[in-house]
């Protein structure tokens, strides 16, 4: 019997196969997938929290759906993401939009779906969360990251999830983001220590970087 494909950190190939083409299916409501294996979402919270706490440079990539205040729910998700970043701690690097930025992006402070590997490489990110990124752009970025980097990718998707992430939640909301933060807090209380290299989150203004590590 053929072994099931596993969605593992790369670098896998210049053009890694779409996980869906390798038989990976999206989770049903109440489920998540860990490396392609469908699990109850409770198991995924625990697994994701441990992965994030175990990372040296855990990073959250918030996308336009949570950076821009389209509605009150977006603002609540943004608040929950900030709480999660503080709980871990994790860096926040925005994916503000999807344009190919000229002359080039600054990989220390932003990520672009067309070249996400640049930001991963530059910051030596070993585990990351995509949240608030439109699905088609997330699919593109997740595949490029798996193809060219060794970063463990976690997708917090408000729709049906992502096969191309190493771990994917679905139907996320402010409450489910808080649930992941609560899981992190619980594990820390139980003695699981964050392995993150100490850093200061950068702060930007209209003039540029105000403070923090870039």
């Amino acid at each position: 019997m053929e072994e099931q494909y596993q969605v593992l950190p790369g670098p896998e190939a210049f053009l890694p196969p779409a996980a869906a083409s390798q038989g990976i299916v999206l989770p049903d409501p109440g489920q998540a997938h860990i490396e392609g294996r469908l699990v109850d979402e409770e198991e995924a919270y625990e697994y994701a929290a441990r992965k994030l706490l175990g990372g040296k440079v855990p990073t959250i990539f918030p996308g336009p759906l949570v950076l821009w205040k389209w509605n009150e729910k977006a603002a609540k998700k943004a608040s929950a993401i900030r709480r999660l970043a503080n709980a871990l701690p994790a860096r926040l690097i925005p994916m503000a939009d999807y344009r190919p930025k000229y002359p080039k992006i600054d990989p220390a402070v932003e990520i672009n779906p067309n070249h996400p590997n640049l930001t991963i490489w530059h910051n030596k990110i070993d585990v990351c969360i995509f949240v608030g990124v439109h699905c088609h752009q997330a699919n593109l970025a997740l595949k490029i990251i798996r193809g060219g980097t060794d970063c463990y990718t976690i997708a917090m998707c408000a729709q049906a999830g992502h096969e191309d992430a190493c771990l994917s939640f679905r139907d996320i909301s402010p409450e489910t983001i808080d649930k992941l933060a609560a899981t992190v807090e619980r594990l820390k209380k139980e003695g699981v220590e964050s392995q993150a290299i100490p850093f200061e989150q950068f702060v930007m203004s209209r003039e540029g970087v105000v403070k923090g590590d870039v």
Partner: protein
Amino acid sequence: MSKEKIALCEDLADVMPPEYQELVATATFGNQDRGWKDIGSSKELIEQHSLCAGCPESIAFRFIMSSIPNPEDSVFVGSTGCTSLVFPQVGIHNIHSLFGNQNAIASGLQRALAVRFPDRVKDVYVLAGDGATVDIGLDMTMQSWFRQEKFTTICFDNELYANTGGQESGLMQKGFVAKMAPVGKKFEKVKLPEIAFESGCHYVAILTVSKPNRVEQAIRRATYVAREFGPTYIQLYTPCILEIGKQSMEGLDEMKDSESIGGRFVMRELMTDEVKAFIKEKEAEDKARRKQAKAVTA
């Protein structure tokens, strides 16, 4: 989309790159008197672009983006060409269409927006090159005018197919020799402004982008007329400096030469008497409002 939605979530605003913070803080969304004079003092709705240095099209983009009266509720429909390289860099909703289909897409979009947002003014603009407007898409362009679709068509006329290497287009001048049209064009430049007017456009303007106040005037007039009457058309000369053998700094001179007396781009406007009266009334209203606002601030 509306002005209220051009805001950042407070909890993540301080990690956003500077240009987005500036966009939210100083762009002229919601200012009905916005115009080209805001360039330099407020955030423009076009970020870095990928056009050639000195490209008149990039100047046209800046003037148009600063002149449209309702950017937060406007949608641009683009087509294949140099313009499609710029659209990812603009802070206004936009759709890329299949080459030539732009006016058909804009027709459906404008109708859908009118049904979905009956109480809100939504402006739709087609912005495409002369190949998409006059050659490959002429059918869709003219059919939208025949049907009296209420949106503005803007044609960037560079008189050839520029980004594919210089092939002959309908708007090319008679006798012009291009890199991939070595024999020289054998027939006259298509008189699309006249065709547009006869096809049902209520306001038509042809001009270069050498003078920003003229571009602003044409854009605003076309927008207001499209809302009230029906289709409008603007043809802007945006020469491709590469394809006509000019240097980066010579685009402006090329446009000025072409609009001097007897030139093919002397500014012209075509409109009915009814539209003329409407524009006069509208501009008087705008002037009175600006005067009043000035008096209040003084």
